[in-house]
């Protein structure tokens, strides 16, 4: 007389378990496919010397000279909402922005303006983004504006799985917020 487990194993087909393995294999790929998530994070993508080398021949303005007190609280709230809210750019769901913020699943944006692409810490960049860094892409208000309006069109193959922010005013608010929060 077989016990229950032996009976169960005897009457179960291998294809039932194969289906489960296939489902698990597909599920393993979906966070990458849908969210652009990646299970491994590089500690360092570029040393300060390498970043210096990439920007030394460029005459970039100081993006952080603006006086943060020149805007109203209402304007500041608008900028923050555009950056953080689900109805805005949704940036804060993946990016941290303040100096001592914990890194999330996307690169930290603190003082991103004037920096080359693909140099932040604690993030594994796509080869498309690394290629753009090697081609000399520097994050300025103009390049960020172009990127967030159509990420896939601006850098094909990058891992920011966003449709793009179509409203120019929202994009402007986000860029202002990035400048202000980095001061």
């Amino acid at each position, binding site marked *: 007389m077989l016990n*229950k*487990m032996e*009976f*169960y194993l005897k*009457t*179960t*087909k291998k294809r*039932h*378990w194969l*289906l*489960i393995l296939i*489902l*698990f294999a*597909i*599920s*393993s790929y*979906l*966070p990458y496919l849908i*969210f652009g*998530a*990646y*299970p*491994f*994070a590089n*500690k360092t993508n570029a040393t300060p010397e390498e970043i210096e080398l990439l920007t030394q021949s460029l005459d970039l303005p100081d993006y952080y000279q603006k006086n943060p007190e020149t805007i109203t609280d209402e304007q500041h709230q608008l900028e923050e909402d555009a950056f*953080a*809210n*689900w109805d805005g750019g949704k940036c*804060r*769901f993946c990016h941290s922005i303040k100096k001592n913020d*914990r*890194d999330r*699943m996307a690169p930290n944006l603190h003082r991103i303006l004037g920096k080359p692409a693909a140099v932040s810490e*604690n993030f594994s960049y796509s080869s498309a983004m690394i290629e753009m860094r090697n081609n000399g892409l520097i994050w300025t208000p103009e390049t960020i504006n172009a990127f967030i309006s159509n990420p896939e069109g601006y850098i094909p193959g990058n891992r920011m799985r966003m449709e793009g922010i179509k409203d120019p005013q929202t994009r402007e608010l986000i860029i202002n917020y990035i400048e202000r929060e980095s001061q």
Partner: protein
Amino acid sequence: MRSAVNEIKTERIASSLSWIIFVLFVVVFVNMMELPRIPIEAPDKDALRNFHIATGSLLFACSCFRVYFWLQSPPQKKQGQLPIEAYNQLHTLQFSLYCAFIGQGLTGIVTAWSDGLMQFLPGATTANHALWALSGYLHSVFAFFYLAIIVFIALTGFYHMIRYRVWRFRIFA
């Protein structure tokens, strides 16, 4: 006689656990659909996240017990019209669902721990970005996995109901 009584007891506990798991899953699922839409700095975020950790941990614990009972006493076919292979296919999928909840719980605990949200030793610094990225990814993998299993349980269940003309929802039980 005594083993028959034990068997009935085990079945009752296992069945109750399945219902508890179902209710907890629905609660965690609704929470999971709402949580990502709330901005990180919003006051509601912490409350919802703590609720997610608490109910998720309960779901994890119940699933561990359910798998234990399943291994002690795997479901035996009780529907005469349903072939044993069809019945076992459904229950293999259900067993995998409980295992997915365990995987989901384990990776969730590691994610919360490596994010500094859950501490086992007071004052210990447990934040680790590399571990958080890996366990967070796996947490997401198990979420997709159990969603896929639930879809397949429904699809194969209804397929067997129609194919073998067994018009009873008990084939899922």
